[in-house]
């Protein structure tokens, strides 16, 4: 039990900071801690979203799969039965068996181990690429939306130019100019999708900056930076989160595509797209070499899309009961 009111004061202030983190981190800790000994129903916007999301079993299914994949990626070294680099030229392209649950590839490496390690690469590419485009695109979009005028024109026309080039072509161009490798692939995929985020953030900043509470924030003497970061962005998280989730799927797919055509991640890094590509010429004799990485890609994209769609529904204010 609390003894003095000071403890409660501290707890409340701490919680406030937590509250802010919530909005940035999305849904991870949407239910705030209970303050003091008072029983308190406290429903933040995010708790409400989480409640609605939970009712959507498809989205929860997607979320579960993603959590499994994330878990797999983190503990790949422990889970994987073999070293992903270990070749066994005596057992090339073996079909699934008890020793190799998903068979071996064209160099006799265990496909299951490679898929497990590949999850690490794919998730990394997905999240880092989306972070890059979200940070750059989001900043540009927020500035363009908030200040409008010439800045808006210059930024958005530049985005239009980027948008005019198909993003996969742009990524191909960037990778072939700067070379492959994990880092460059992430940057290439990230840059290619910047305009998408710039547009989304700009649109929601425009709709929110016209609201009265922004004028109220100005009226208490808040600076522009503070208004954008503290007042506008937390209010425009919904479309950004949805697009970000779907964007991870698109990024993973783009990276796999780049690897497939040989421009992406260098062997022996186990990348799903590269694995698929290397199994291509064995498709008649040993279809499992290409099939299992393909299924891994498919399941991941499918799960991300389920979650993304579920989030879109859960965040749609029109569906509020």
């Amino acid at each position, binding site marked *: 039990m609390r003894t003095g009111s000071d403890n409660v*004061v*501290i707890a*409340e*202030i701490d*919680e*406030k900071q937590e*509250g802010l983190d919530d*909005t940035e981190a999305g849904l991870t800790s949407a239910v705030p801690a209970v*303050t003091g000994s*008072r029983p308190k129903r*406290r*429903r*933040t*916007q995010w708790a409400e979203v989480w409640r609605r999301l939970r009712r959507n079993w498809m989205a929860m299914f997607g979320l579960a799969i993603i959590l499994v994949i994330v878990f797999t990626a983190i503990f790949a070294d422990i889970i994987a039965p073999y070293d992903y680099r270990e070749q066994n030229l005596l057992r090339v392209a073996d079909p699934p068996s008890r020793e190799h649950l998903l068979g071996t590839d064209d160099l006799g490496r265990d496909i299951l181990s490679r898929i497990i390690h590949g999850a690490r690469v794919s998730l990394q590419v997905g999240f880092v690429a989306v972070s890059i485009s979200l940070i750059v695109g989001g900043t540009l979009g927020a500035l363009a939306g908030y200040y409008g*005028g010439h800045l808006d024109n210059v930024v958005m026309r530049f985005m239009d130019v980027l948008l005019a080039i198909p993003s996969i072509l742009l990524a191909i161009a960037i990778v072939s100019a700067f070379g492959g490798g994990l880092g460059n692939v992430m940057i290439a995929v990230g840059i290619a999708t910047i305009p998408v985020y710039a547009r989304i953030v700009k649109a929601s900043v425009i709709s929110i900056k016209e*609201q*009265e*509470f922004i*004028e*109220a*924030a*100005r*009226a*208490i*003497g*808040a*600076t522009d930076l503070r208004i954008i970061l*503290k*007042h506008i962005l*937390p*209010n425009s998280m919904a479309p950004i989160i949805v697009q970000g989730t779907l964007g991870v799927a698109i990024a993973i797919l783009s990276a796999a595509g780049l690897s497939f055509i040989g421009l992406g991640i260098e062997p022996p890094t186990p990348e799903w797209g590269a694995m698929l590509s290397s199994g291509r010429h064995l498709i008649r004799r040993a279809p499992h070499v290409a099939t299992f990485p393909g299924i891994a890609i498919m399941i991941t994209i499918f799960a991300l899309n389920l979650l993304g769609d579920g989030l879109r529904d859960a965040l749609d204010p029109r569906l509020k009961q």
Partner: protein
Amino acid sequence: MNDVLLDIRDLRVTYTTEEGLVVAVDDLNLQLRRGETLGLVGETGAGKTTTALSIMQLVPSPPGRIETGEIFFDGEDLRRKRLEDIRNVRGNRISMIFQDPMTSLNPVLTVGFQIEEAIMLHQRLSQRQAGRKARDMLKLVGIPEGRAGDYPHEFSGGMRQRVGIAMALSCNPELLIADEPTTALDVTIQAQVLELMRRLRSEFGTSMLLITHDLGVVAEACDSVAIMYAGAAVETADTERLFTNPRHPYTRGLFGSIPSLDEDVPRLSPIKGIMPDPTELPTGCRFHPRCPAATGICAERTPVMVAVEEGHEVDCMIYEGLVPEARIGEKED
């Protein structure tokens, strides 16, 4: 002279729109004495809110622009201040209560945080002290301090407006601008909020500019009144004089449009016509197309403010002796 806290002189604010130049405020003159409450009354579109935003230097630009005039606050022209200095005035020395408490609070931030933010922007306090003060402000406006961690949607309209008042008064401002603070509220809540504002105002010694279109609110809360029509003040007086002896035909028209308990009239007499299109204001006296006393000269000559008695000024040529005071107050069929 230092008795006057706010002195607006010849203020002209325009908005550039696709239909043309909208003159929202035109040659407005207003004075607010320290400790007083001035009611700014007018129809929708008369330029009341633009006036408030001009004082805060918050007229959205573009499309808005303060073209001419001076806004003296405590002897300093706010228009000449640098942005940084203006920010120091906003929320600190002049603060504002907004019309709709449903939209003027940020839905994703707790009310405690929002009050705290206003405090921290202007006072050198630790977050803990600011939080303490925010909860004290909430208590002051009659909200249990335990609710500081709640979000705006967990409050009723009246309570949100109390939060708005707490936020506005948190830095102990010299001037409080209340932009139709009770319009969006139920009548019963209106009375509570007005009473609260009156109590706190006298407690804090704050001067207030109360924007409203409700003459009842003016009668209850204001020391003096300025009636605005199409961007300019047409009559200013202390509340008592204005209510007992309205002079401008527009003011009389306003009083004719509200039901009275004492008089039994079969029909209310609304003012004829509608507010003029702000892109094409009438020549001469702006009110002449709707004025029952208008004569030819009203369309040609712009009237000048004349004092009909001590502290009672009217912007009408009747009192310049150029137009006969005919038919005013008489009923149109």
